[in-house]
Structures are given as structure tokens and as C-alpha cells.
């Protein structure tokens, strides 16, 4: 039996893993991929110690750090269920089942889907949720970005480097985000913005051919594009966890116990949570790393007190 299983591979999970390794407790981490959302971020300029880096580079450093300590990381295994036993838990994955005294859920967030007709069928066939990965695939083609925040604008500006024409389909009355990106989009002759526009369908048979949307109360419009980048935010990556209490956004509710100097507690004793999957208001890589450390320090206290018969 393990003392701890860490679920996730982003900064919260990795920072916790470094502390757990140094504490020499018996643990492993299970992650679909090492790096999490950080790995697919484009430019990163606010992570302390790295004035100008990007997701691939920064997550590469994270991975080197855990490798230095020989962390047992089951990368590529997907957690399917958490089970509670009388004095332990079982973390079931696509490959195995791990029994453990405690769990730290740090599984982050995943892209929110549009839930319109054609989206699932054309996913990977023109619909993409990772503009950073796939924008260059659409060289010389026309694409649409769905969304109206920073990540949508970031995707549009990246797509502009490769695509002939970029349409932004934004459900809100105006784009919202960093002034510097708003200015660049305003100046661009190849980016067209449709505001107050709700996407209704993604069209295409074998390959994507267009997108349908309704602007205000007007009739539906169709534009011909070969790619659609969905950038409408993120939802907690938490399908496997039926045990802990969530808020209305399906984020794990965490609380602290000031008398016992413990934080990142969930509604289930022995399960801790950290980072973007929780109801912590700030969803930032650096915040997540700190949350991961707070959580694992609480795990140490919990294991210590549990061992003393509390």
C-alpha cells in the first residue's frame, strides 16, 4: 500500500511530487501527461525565475526536476475511479489499481466543449482544442476561432501567422482580455470578428467545411472554413471522482483546518486536492505549484497523525 497517490501531471501535482520524494514517503503519481495545461501554453512570462519561456520548455524543466528524484510517474495512465475502503482508498486506472492511504487530486482542467452538432464527429478532422499544437496544420487555409477571451485571441493571433483568413466567433458583445492582444486583432486585416454570435453547428462530412452561427436575433450565417479552434474556457478534469464535494462549477471544494494547520482538505478525510481542479479562485501555474506544496505538506501531517492513532 502506498502512503500517497498523486493524480495529475501539472504544476500542482509535480510540485507535490518533489516534496513527497524529498520526504521519502511511499508514493506514485498517475498522469495522462506530464506538464498538464502548462505544457500546451504558448508564451509564459509570469512564472517566477523564468522571465520569458513557453509551456514546452517550462514543463520540460518540471519533468527534469521530478526525474532527478526518481519519482514513480505512471504517464499515459488515465484514472477511471476513486474507491473508498474502510482505512484506505483505491485509485483505479486504465492499467492497474493502486491502494493508498491518501490521495492528492491535482488533475487540473480540460477544454470546455461547445456541445453543438458536428463537433464530436469532426473532432481531430478540423475541430481542435489545442491551437498551439495544430495552428500550423492549417497553413494557407481559412479557420474560425470560437471564443472571446484571452485564449481565443491568443489562438487567433497564432492562426493569423499561418492561415489566410481567421474568423473569431464570439458569443459576447465584445472581445475581453489583454489590451495588447485587442490592439493586434483590431489592426489585423486577416482577422474578422463576429460578436454576439452563437455557434450552432460545425459542418462537414469527412473533413470540416464550415461553421454555422446566429448573430443576435438574426438569421443563421454559414462561413466556409477548414479548421475550428474551440477556445471557450476549461472545465475540471474530474470524471473519475465521485467521492468529494464539488461547487456549482464542478470544482472540488477545499477548506482548511486552522487548529491542525492543514489546508487543501476535501469533504473526504484522506483525500486532498490542489490547483485548477479546486475552487481556488486563481487558476495560474505558479499558484497551482504553491497549492500543490500546501496540499502535500498537509498530507504529511495527516499521515503523521494517522500513524499516531488519531
Amino acid at each position, binding site marked *: 500500500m502506498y502512503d500517497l497517490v498523486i493524480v495529475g501531471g501539472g504544476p500542482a501535482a509535480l510540485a507535490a511530487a518533489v516534496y513527497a520524494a524529498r520526504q521519502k514517503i511511499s508514493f506514485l503519481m498517475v498522469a495522462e501527461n506530464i506538464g498538464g495545461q502548462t*505544457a500546451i501554453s504558448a508564451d509564459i512570462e509570469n512564472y517566477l525565475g523564468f522571465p520569458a519561456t513557453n509551456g*514546452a520548455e517550462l514543463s520540460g524543466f518540471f519533468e527534469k526536476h521530478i526525474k532527478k528524484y526518481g519519482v514513480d510517474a505512471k504517464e*499515459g*495512465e488515465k484514472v477511471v475511479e476513486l474507491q473508498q475502503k474502510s482505512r484506505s482508498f483505491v485509485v483505479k486506472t486504465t492499467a492497474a489499481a493502486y491502494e493508498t492511504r491518501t490521495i492528492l487530486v491535482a488533475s487540473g482542467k480540460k477544454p470546455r466543449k461547445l456541445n453543438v452538432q458536428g463537433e464530436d464527429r469532426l473532432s*481531430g*478532422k478540423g475541430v481542435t482544442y*489545442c491551437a498551439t*499544437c495544430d495552428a*500550423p496544420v492549417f497553413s494557407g487555409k481559412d479557420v474560425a476561432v470560437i471564443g472571446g477571451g484571452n485564449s481565443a485571441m491568443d489562438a487567433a493571433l497564432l492562426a493569423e501567422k499561418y492561415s489566410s483568413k481567421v474568423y473569431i466567433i464570439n458569443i459576447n458583445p465584445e472581445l475581453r482580455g489583454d489590451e495588447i492582444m485587442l490592439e493586434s486583432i483590431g489592426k489585423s486585416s486577416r482577422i474578422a470578428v463576429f460578436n454576439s454570435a452563437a455557434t450552432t453547428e460545425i459542418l462537414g462530412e469527412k473533413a470540416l467545411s464550415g461553421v454555422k452561427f446566429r448573430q443576435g436575433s438574426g438569421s443563421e450565417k454559414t462561413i466556409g472554413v477548414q479548421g475550428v479552434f474551440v477556445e471557450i474556457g476549461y472545465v475540471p478534469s474530474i470524471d473519475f471522482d465521485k467521492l468529494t464535494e464539488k461547487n456549482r462549477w464542478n470544482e472540488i471544494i477545499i477548506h482548511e483546518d486552522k487548529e491542525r494547520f492543514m489546508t487543501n482538505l476535501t469533504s473526504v478525510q484522506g483525500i486532498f486536492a490542489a490547483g485548477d481542479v479546486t475552487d481556488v479562485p486563481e487558476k495560474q501555474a505558479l499558484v497551482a505549484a504553491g497549492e500543490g506544496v500546501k496540499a502535500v505538506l498537509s498530507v504529511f501531517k495527516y499521515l503523521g497523525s494517522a500513524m499516531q492513532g488519531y
Partner: protein
Amino acid sequence: MQVYSTPTCPWCQKTKEFLKENSISFHEINVAADQKALQHMVDKSGQMGVPVIDVDGQIVVGFDKQMLKKLLKISG
């Protein structure tokens, strides 16, 4: 062995690092700069996302470490 990739894709980077770490030689194809290669990739994998790894005709979509380990008989 071929790796279809784009210059901006973090999972392509990770795939290449993984293969290098395990001393596996591969031919990298940048589909952003080669429309014909992009079409080959779409034909082989039935989709447009990168990376696509062709291991002697067996197609892996994305950085699927477990599948690559299996196909390349990498232990650990």
C-alpha cells in the same frame, strides 16, 4: 519510423525527446511546411491533429507513451 509534427506542438517535442532518450532513430516531417506530407498524415491517421507517429505502419495519434512503449518494446 516517422514522426509527423509541427514546430509549435509541445507533444511533438515530448514525443521526439522520448524517442531520443530511448535511442530510437526516426524521420521527422514538418506538416506545416509540406502539404503533401500533411495529406499523407491525414490519410494514414484519419485525422489532422499532431503528432502522428508511424511505427512500421502502425499509427499512433498523440504522445501516447504507453502505446509507443508497447510498439517499440521499451520496458520500464
